[in-house]
């Protein structure tokens, strides 16, 4: 091999011309098959309705590129999986780009001018080293993923559907696709290394020490004394490697491997406010919401195909955890199957199921009870590493159910009350400010005099007799701190956040219009809300209706007042507390530090639950669920009960602190129904503030009470935070 004085290698060594032609023929075929599949999929998205996701395209691409490159979304809360996937990803990228480099050098540059070939010398050395090492990362990552999938078997990868009877479907094809995908990649890498080892073993060019793995394999052949035999096998193995690789290319658009193409794109077109700001119903729409495939936008269709079945949403979903027939993963997969059926761009290995006949999607393919189970907590969207937007899709389908009158009697009753009285309690709107009667000062009427903070109280805080005391507590704290605040009195209506999420868009618009009018008549600098749900719609949705104001949660305002010395504490509280992030305050509003800092300032020791901050677990009330009938599934604890049990996993926690009126209702009920009475107490953060502001120490939660005595021993033997 004297012609190879500079490091390089021959592309088709020992190849007769016919075989070279065969290789090019097969490559063309594989690429044609792949392109056909991509075209089919592309055409499917093309058929989707328009979606405005094209603004700030440069920033979108950069952001998606960064997310894919750094694996931030993948590694979030799943460092192991993130690392394994990063190994596979970067290994694949290196090997793929390496192959492209050879193509450019050999199939393009060589034909133009052989003098310009660059795949040699120092470049070749570094090329060999990088590819060899990243190939190891590739194999290592695959190995970890295989162990995870087949040995560890986490619940996220269990394909059992909660929304279908066990015998009604078969997902064995999904499992086959997983196996095929992993083993194909694995054998492509292994055969690649073997071919490399065989090539190196044949004549041992010194520069090939830059291919350390191949060199070791060559050493292994020598040690085993099989080098002459493997030299004869080189061509066979080369072809095996090539056929596997070409097979993979052809298989890619028809399998889960398509995520390699789609998921970066999907991340780029993701809406930052997805779920927080729901899409309006177009004026021209005869009937609101989604009924058939024809109603889906191209982004919806892309979402469906982007799913990798990683199951993060499946395990995060509170509805599924509470035994409801909803799994965000299965919702997406079911719609994907339906879309592939109706619009083409099919995956090769599909679920086997008797599909409902006819074009009806909402209520048929996706059942009404599945759609009604969603609490719109956004845990699925927060967990999804590829930017799938489940909640807007569910709401779009709910809109159609509402239009068709297919809704729970409790929900219907509440919506009728909201239509008529503007509040979900079905009380006279004249009584909205009745809770203020227990105060020894008058709250300003923001409609009549200017205030700094307009306090948007919300239905639960204003009307629920069990919560009015807490609302007065907030008022007293504001008053004591000398905050200039006022309320809208009878002018306030339900903000409509959950009405909108229940799918009653018209009613949302009606309520919002009334609030926007009332807000326009008031004079104030910023809005402060008790209810995180109201916070969301006021902050993210009202601006589209002409009411753009600064919105803050009362915990933020109170913390400011504490910091600035306007709320001097009479005493510091003792004891251990955990804080439950309301979905709408953490995942929606991203207010997570203020309540925590408040608790610490009050003197409590804060212990985090296993799932905290944006990974918080829903109480089950959101998205209109609190208005629907009792939805407990026999034998399964409710989401709220599961959450209380989670708090009790950590030793010493006796206060379960919340910062949302609905949470007080939900968790106080859960403590009773779940049999946790005497072990833990649900506290609204303002109650604790009230205790610290009160001059009488008798009101404090005592650091040594019967709770610690009863629970301490048992809890200390438990796993605690670190145990999980």
């Amino acid at each position, binding site marked *: 091999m004297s012609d190879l004085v500079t490091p390089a290698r021959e592309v088709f060594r020992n190849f007769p011309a016919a075989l070279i032609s065969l290789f090019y023929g097969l490559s063309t075929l594989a690429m044609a098959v792949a392109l056909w599949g991509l075209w089919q999929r592309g055409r499917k998205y093309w058929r989707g309705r328009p979606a405005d996701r094209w603004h700030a395209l440069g920033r979108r691409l950069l952001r998606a590129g960064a997310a894919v490159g750094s694996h931030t979304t993948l590694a979030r809360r799943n460092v192991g999986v993130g690392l394994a996937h990063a190994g596979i990803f970067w290994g694949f990228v290196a090997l793929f780009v390496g192959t492209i480099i050879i193509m450019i050098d050999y199939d393009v540059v060589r034909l133009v001018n052989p003098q310009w070939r660059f795949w040699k010398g120092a470049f070749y050395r570094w090329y060999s080293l990088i590819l060899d090492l990243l190939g190891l990362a590739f194999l290592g990552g695959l190995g970890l993923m295989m162990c995870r999938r087949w040995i560890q078997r986490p619940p996220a990868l269990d394909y059992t559907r909660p929304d279908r009877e066990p015998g009604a479907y078969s997902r064995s094809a999904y499992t086959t696709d997983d196996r095929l995908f992993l083993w194909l990649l694995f054998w492509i890498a292994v055969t690649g290394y073997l071919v490399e080892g065989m090539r190196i073993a044949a004549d041992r060019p010194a520069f090939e020490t830059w291919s350390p793995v191949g060199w070791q394999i060559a050493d292994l052949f020598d040690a085993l004394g099989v080098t002459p035999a493997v030299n004869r096998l080189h061509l066979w193995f080369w072809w095996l490697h090539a056929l596997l690789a070409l097979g993979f290319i052809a298989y890619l658009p028809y399998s889960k491997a398509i995520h390699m193409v789609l998921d970066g794109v999907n991340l780029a077109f993701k809406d930052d406010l997805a779920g927080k700001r729901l899409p309006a119903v177009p004026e021209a729409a005869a009937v609101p919401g989604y009924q058939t495939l024809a109603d889906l936008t191209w982004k919806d269709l892309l979402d469906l195909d982007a799913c990798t079945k990683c199951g993060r949403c499946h395990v995060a979903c509170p509805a599924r955890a509470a035994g409801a027939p909803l799994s965000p993963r299965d919702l997406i997969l079911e719609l994907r199957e339906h879309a592939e059926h109706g619009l083409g761009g099919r995956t090769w290995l599909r679920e086997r199921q008797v599909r409902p006949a006819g074009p009806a999607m909402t209520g048929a393919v996706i059942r009404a009870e599945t759609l009604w189970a969603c609490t719109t907590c956004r845990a699925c969207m927060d967990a999804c590493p590829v930017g799938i937007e489940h909640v807007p899709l569910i709401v779009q389908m709910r809109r159609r159910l*509402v*239009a068709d009158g297919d809704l729970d009697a409790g929900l*219907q009753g509440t919506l009728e009350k909201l*239509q*008529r*009285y503007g509040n979900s309690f079905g009380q006279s709107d004249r009584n909205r400010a009745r809770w203020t009667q227990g105060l020894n000062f008058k709250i300003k009427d923001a409609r009549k005099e200017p205030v700094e903070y307009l306090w948007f109280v919300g239905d639960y805080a204003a009307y629920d007799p069990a919560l009015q005391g807490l609302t007065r507590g907030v008022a007293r704290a504001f008053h004591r701190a000398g905050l200039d605040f006022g309320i809208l009195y009878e002018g306030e209506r339900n903000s409509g956040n959950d009405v909108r999420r229940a799918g009653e868009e018209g*009613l949302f*618009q*009606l309520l919002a219009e009334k609030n926007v009018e009332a807000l326009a008549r008031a004079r104030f600098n910023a809005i402060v809300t008790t209810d995180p749900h109201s916070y969301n719609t006021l902050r993210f949705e009202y601006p589209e209706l002409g009411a753009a104001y600064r919105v803050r949660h009362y915990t933020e305002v109170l913390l400011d007042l504490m910091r600035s010395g306007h709320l001097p504490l009479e005493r510091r509280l003792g004891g251990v507390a955990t804080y439950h992030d309301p979905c709408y305050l953490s995942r929606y509003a991203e207010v997570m530090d203020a309540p925590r800092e408040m608790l610490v300032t009050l003197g409590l020791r804060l212990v985090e639950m296993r799932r905290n901050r944006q990974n918080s677990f829903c109480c089950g009330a959101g998205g209109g669920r609190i208005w629907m009938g009792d939805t407990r599934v026999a034998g399964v604890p409710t989401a709220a009960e599961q959450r209380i049990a989670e708090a009790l996993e950590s030793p010493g926690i006796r206060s379960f602190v919340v910062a949302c009126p609905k949470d007080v209702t939900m968790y106080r009920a859960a403590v009773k129904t779940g049999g946790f009475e005497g072990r833990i107490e649900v506290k609204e953060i303002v109650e604790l503030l009230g205790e610290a502001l009160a001059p009488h120490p008798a009101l404090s939660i005592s650091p040594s009470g019967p709770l610690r005595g009863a629970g301490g021993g048992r809890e200390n033997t438990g796993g605690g935070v670190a145990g999980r």
Partner: protein
Amino acid sequence: MDIVVPVKMVPDLVEELEVNAEGTDLDRSVMKLRINEFDEHAVEEALGLKGRHGARVTVLAVDTGDVDETLFTCLAKGADRAVKITGDFQNGVSSHTMAAVLAKVIAGMPHDLILAGVQAADDRDGQVGVLLGATMGLPHVSVVTGVEPAGDKAVSVRQEYAGGLVAELEVDLPAVLGIQAARQAPRYAPVSKVRQIMKTAKLEAIAAPAVDAGAGSTVRRLAKPEVAGRAEFIEGSPEEVAERLYAILTERGLVK
């Protein structure tokens, strides 16, 4: 089949009610009105029949105030025609006058079946359907919980009795039925649909024909209930509560 459903507005009990200065009626100036619940069921039964067998549903309301939204809601739910009967009714209207007016109006429109709510929450006299039947010379069945066509010229109706007994009757058409409950809960009218209807549809208005039906009965005195009686909250352990309960019940001779 042409179905006519007369509906009536009654005071909304969510709002506080006031008795007028004369002590003979509610103070209508501060009162909010809503559709009578039984009439809501009558509308639902009519729309159910329309859905299952096809029908033309006309909703009628004597304009005692606030009827527009109610009529638009009926249209949004699927009624074909909504008619407001205008006149000097701001101070309410007695069942006798209501029935006489309705009889004349309905006589002038196609009607195979007249579904009225069995009674209304404000007077509880349940007379409108009966009077309508009598005035128009039509058969009448009251306390009906389900209607199905029986051939072209009759309907089969379920009539509810005390103790869970149900009679099934066949009534020749045209007929007047007093609806106790529709076979399913009244349907939901989405706001967007109601608003759309408000923009596109128009309510028909018919001036009330002159009638001289009298009031049938007059209210001599109307008063808020006087606070009487008292409640006792029993506290203590379940055993103590049970003991106290037992004591109370035996004291009053309810348990021997």
